């Protein structure tokens, strides 16, 4: 069984959202994914990381966001974790157009759900939120040299 694990930890600042996208785009490029799939992965990761910064940490910059990638067999698992304020009602937060901010569309979870095969959100108040997203792909991604 071939597998690959990559972790990135970074400060909860808006500049780092593009860094997280860069990582998933690069990993996606190694897998048998279409350019469209990679675009969708970038959006899903962008949403999860933005949520961690905006909602989890309430835009307070000196916190840490964890991004863990796991590729095992034909499954890519993306975990985005924050140790922020948590979500009081996960089910409500995942509804389309639900947003605590009028400038935002409340589409973060909708995009994550649309673009990934599986989405799981675990959250505890004052402890943080863990977003787990899974995507299946066709072929064995890791070269054997």
């Amino acid at each position: 069984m071939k597998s690959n694990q990559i972790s990135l930890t970074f400060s909860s600042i808006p500049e780092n959202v593009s860094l997280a996208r860069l990582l998933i785009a690069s990993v996606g490029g190694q897998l048998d994914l279409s350019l469209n799939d990679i675009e969708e992965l970038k959006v899903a990761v962008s949403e999860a990381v933005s949520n961690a910064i905006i909602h989890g940490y309430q835009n307070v910059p000196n916190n840490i966001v964890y991004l863990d990638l796991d590729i095992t067999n034909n499954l890519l698992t993306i975990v985005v974790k924050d140790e922020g304020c948590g979500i009081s009602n996960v089910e409500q937060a995942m509804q389309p157009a639900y947003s605590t901010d009028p400038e935002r569309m409340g589409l973060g979870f909708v995009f994550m759900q649309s673009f990934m095969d599986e989405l799981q959100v675990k959250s505890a108040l004052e402890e943080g939120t863990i977003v787990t997203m899974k995507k299946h792909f066709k072929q064995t991604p890791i070269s054997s040299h």
Partner: protein
Amino acid sequence: MNLEKKIERLTLLLRLDGELDMHTASTLRHAIDSEIEKRGIRTVILNLQGVQFVDSSGLGVILGRYKKLLPLGGKLKITNVPPHIYKIMELSGLPKIISFYVDEAHAYEEGRGA
């Protein structure tokens, strides 16, 4: 993200280049809001030709400008959307609310002389 700005009477044209996410969204918000407040801009045309990425933060700022212009009797128009960006916008329902045009000329034309 880079912004190229052109102002003609009460119309602001912005050509966007780069990625539109939570980081760059605030730049775009400020660029538009300051012109609405300073110069009384009423029509904003966003040319998205050079946009490589958009997420819900980017879409939120676009929708927010639309909502800001509406009670002022203003308009927000979008032109030159790359196909992969349009797909994301379509999923968000934005094209049902905001007018899209193939290019800047069409966006300028519509509503002129009305």
